């Protein structure tokens, strides 16, 4: 525990040093070094915990009323700490190169970056409500400053505002939640909460709202597609890959206080997850900005994780051990998986942005030939996020599917419905994810550049390629190591169940082993086939020609399918949910004048929920402003009236 805190202190100290550093380069270097050193030290207890289980505690006095510096580490915290430890230094390393582009105050940004990382680590180990809240907001504020870093570009302000507002609203729910728990428990220590708030529905739903806002549950997801594109890419990687998981952590941590959950909690989470998953990926399809696509895809993945948690809750409520293990386990494994491939993809998108200065997919194309390794890594990431074997995304989804199968055993209507919902939901989400990421990858990296924007303006440095390749390897490593990783995951899951669960949950491990072998065979087979193909008599004879264009006279790069046209049929199927706005240009006559079409994808949550609410609020407030009309006489009347009314009323 002390080791962990020391590591965190090193990270914070590194942040301060780099904030006052003389040059950007030195600042970045300090930050990265401190992250590697600090998190390296912190990793020791975390990994020990993941392998052996158990729990540590450390409590120090704190002068704030009601607060104590209580820290603790258990497998659940350790599991969530893993992405922080892996992703943060990589993203920082990437960021040192990424930030060389233009920023003059990237030095202070490292302070916030390190504080963000440190706060995430601290959040995971804090065991006091007040402490938790403070760290929670430190995390929000430091990430906010990272989001608005590129404030000269104009778009950032809206993003920052929506993010700040969403996170604040979420925090209010969390505060409310802790108030309720604190009242019942009579203490602010987490260990006292456990007994006190068993079965409290209001606690649970406040947790869903409060932590859901951070995690990006639908419809509290609106900040994600704003904040992620606005932030520098290494920050989006960290935020989307790691920070939003803190919301999930908060939710599951609260679940440990709730005792045996009610069945409808689980169903609510399933519904929330399903909505978020499907709408998230649909909205991702409608986007043209590559980072917005990734942001919405985070909403989708959070949806999948939420479904898993919902399944776990139902398992707990039904006393179905397999469902608990597979539901929660799938969710938690997906947390780690998502953090790996999402940060990989965000960094990949960052490299694209860095070298071409545009995020709009329809202007890009053919980058695969110019930045080959980035393309390879991005391909791995997009295969993983589509949940395809042998990458890690599939393992998590497979566990969830197995959870669905496991719930069939119970034989009740409800458990069968759970299986049906999970299967249909995951199938739809997975199918749409394939649409989304074939599109994203191929439009950006394949074919030919659609406009001049697709030319490379800045060359990538090695620091921007290696982290991607590392993460790409990691997607495979996690997948192949899953039979062993799953043990640590199950260790964490045991903490989530109010009733003790026997340690060795075998069935899924053995299936996972088969899965891993099959995955390896798939890769080997593909390699073998490629090898054979090259060894064929004429296998290495190649001629080069133009693409077969069906006899068209003057093919042009701009005639390629664009991201919008690629997904058009799918979007049309879901017209009302993922609406695209745009003016259809008029084309008349045999030789029409040149024209252009612009479309923009709205967000259903924003358009149908928040904006009307703000407009309503404004309409409500407008007449009330007459109160301050500027006439001193009227003001004096207020005083006289107040006095008289109070006197008559109270005396």
């Amino acid at each position, binding site marked *: 525990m002390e080791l962990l805190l020391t590591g965190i202190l090193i990270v914070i100290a590194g942040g301060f040093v780099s904030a006052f550093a003389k040059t950007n380069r030195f600042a970045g270097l300090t930050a990265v070094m401190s992250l590697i050193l600090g998190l390296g030290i912190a990793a020791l207890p975390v990994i020990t915990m993941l392998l052996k289980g158990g729990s540590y505690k450390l409590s120090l006095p704190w002068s704030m009323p009601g607060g104590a510096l209580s820290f603790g580490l258990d497998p659940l915290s350790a599991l969530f700490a893993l992405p922080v430890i892996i992703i943060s230094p990589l993203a920082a390393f990437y960021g040192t190169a990424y930030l060389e582009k233009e920023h003059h105050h990237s030095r202070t940004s490292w302070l916030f970056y390190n504080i963000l990382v440190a706060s995430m680590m601290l959040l995971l180990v804090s065991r006091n409500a007040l402490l938790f809240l403070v760290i929670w907001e430190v995390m929000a504020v430091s990430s906010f400053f990272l989001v608005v870093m590129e404030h000269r570009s104009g778009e950032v302000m809206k993003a920052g505002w929506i993010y700040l507002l969403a996170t604040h609203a979420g925090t209010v729910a969390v505060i409310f939640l802790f108030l309720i728990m604190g009242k019942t428990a009579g203490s602010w220590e987490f260990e006292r909460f456990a007994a006190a708030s068993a079965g409290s529905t209001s606690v649970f739903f406040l947790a869903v709202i409060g932590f859901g806002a951070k995690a990006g549950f639908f419809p509290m997801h609106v900040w994600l597609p704003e904040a992620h594109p606005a932030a520098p890419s290494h920050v989006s990687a960290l935020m989307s890959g790691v920070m939003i998981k803190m919301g999930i952590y908060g939710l599951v941590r609260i679940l440990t206080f709730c005792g045996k959950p009610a069945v409808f909690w689980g169903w609510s989470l399933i519904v929330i997850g399903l909505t978020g998953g499907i709408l998230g990926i649909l909205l991702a399809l409608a986007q043209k900005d590559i980072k917005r696509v990734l942001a919405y895809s985070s909403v989708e993945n959070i949806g999948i994780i939420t479904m898993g948690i919902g399944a776990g809750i139902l398992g707990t409520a039904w006393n179905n051990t397999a469902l608990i293990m597979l539901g929660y386990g799938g969710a938690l494994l997906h947390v780690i998986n998502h953090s790996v491939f999402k940060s990989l993809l965000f960094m990949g998108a960052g490299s694209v942005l860095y070298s071409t200065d545009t995020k709009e997919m329809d202007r890009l194309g053919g980058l695969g030939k110019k930045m080959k390794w980035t393309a390879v890594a991005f391909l791995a990431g997009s295969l993983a996020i589509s949940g395809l074997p042998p990458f890690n995304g*599939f393992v998590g989804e497979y566990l969830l599917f197995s959870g669905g199968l496991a719930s069939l055993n119970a034989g009740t209507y409800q458990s069968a419905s759970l299986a049906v919902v999970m299967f249909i939901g995951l*199938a739809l989400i997975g199918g749409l994810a394939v649409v989304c990421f074939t599109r994203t990858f191929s439009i950006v990296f394949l074919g030919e550049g659609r406009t001049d924007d697709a030319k490379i303006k800045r060359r990538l440095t090695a620091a921007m390629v290696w982290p991607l390749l590392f993460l790409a390897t990691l997607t495979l490593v996690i997948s192949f190591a899953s039979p062993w990783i799953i043990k640590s995951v199950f260790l964490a899951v045991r903490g989530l169940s109010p009733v003790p669960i026997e340690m060795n949950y075998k069935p899924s491990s053995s299936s996972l082993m088969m899965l891993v072998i099959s995955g390896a065979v*798939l890769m080997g087979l593909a390699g073998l086939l490629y090898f054979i193909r090259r060894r064929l008599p004429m296998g290495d004879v190649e001629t080069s020609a133009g693409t077969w264009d069906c006899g068209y006279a003057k093919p042009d790069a701009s005639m390629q399918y664009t991201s919008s046209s690629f997904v058009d049929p799918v979007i049309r199927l879901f017209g009302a949910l993922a609406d695209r706005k745009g003016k259809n240009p008029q084309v008349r006559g045999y030789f029409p004048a040149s024209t252009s079409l612009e479309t923009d994808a709205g967000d259903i949550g924003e358009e149908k929920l928040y904006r009307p609410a703000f407009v309503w609020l404004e309409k409500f407030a407008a007449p009330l402003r007459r109160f301050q009309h500027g006439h001193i006489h009227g003001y004096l009347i207020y005083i006289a009236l107040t006095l008289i009314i109070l006197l008559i009323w109270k005396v």
Partner: protein
Amino acid sequence: MKLLHWLLPISAFIIAPIIPGIINRVKAFFAGRRGVPILQLYIDIWKLLRKGSTYSHTTSFVFRIAPSVIAAALILCTFFIPWGSISSPVSFSGDLIFIAYLLDVARYFTVIAAMDTGSAFEGMGASREVQFGFLAEPAFLMGILVLVMVTKNTSTSGIMQHLSTSVWADSGILLILVATAWYFLLLTENSRIPVDDPNTHLELTMIHEVMVLDYSGPDFAYILYGSALKLWIFSALIVNILLPVAALPIWLQPIVFIAGTAGVAILVGITESIIARLRLVTVPKIIVSASALCFIALIFRIIG
């Protein structure tokens, strides 16, 4: 016994390319033509394998590795397909889901390879392919769920072994619904009429064929072989569900199984001959109705 299991995929590798041949012969029969030889695909593949290949300037590494990956994914699928009660060499809980995702891998690479060429037509095909693909996915997975519920078994081999006569008597109607739905999927996924027309040469109307327009030589051979395997996989699954293969004596099973597969091929041929190609916008309806069939089966199973 072990060897026997391994024989299954190997036989599948050999038999699979015949199925398109059968379909073509049936179609030729209905059209009153003599048709190409039934082993035409073998000849084609053999010829292609000995050729060099032509690549577009536009293409990148994706285009080159895609055929191997596609073929590998489909080959791997055959390892999970049992022949009646003769279980497949590899089998684990939920391997049908793995099959579904392997098919997705194949589709994924087909699509990105098509996009790699930068051709507007291939883009069009890719766009349609992913659209139909995501629609087909729920139907397939719901079908799996029905089978799992009916047989109370989670691996493919386990499911097929447990499709005994008593199960048939109990929930035969559900199995028929699933088989019908999967037959629709077969037509969709393998680009058959009424969804797609493998024979047409009008690029605008094609889906799968247009995506592989730019392939040549051994790459194209891999792709053709992969398509044949895919057809085999779907046929095999349908045969396993529809025919009570597992109830027969063990020596009879391979024969019935292969005969059934040929039967499915004939059925596809008949379907192609008597039905016209659908308008593209109505295709999603077919696939959605396949999902609906599976869903109905599910509801029946849960309630009834």
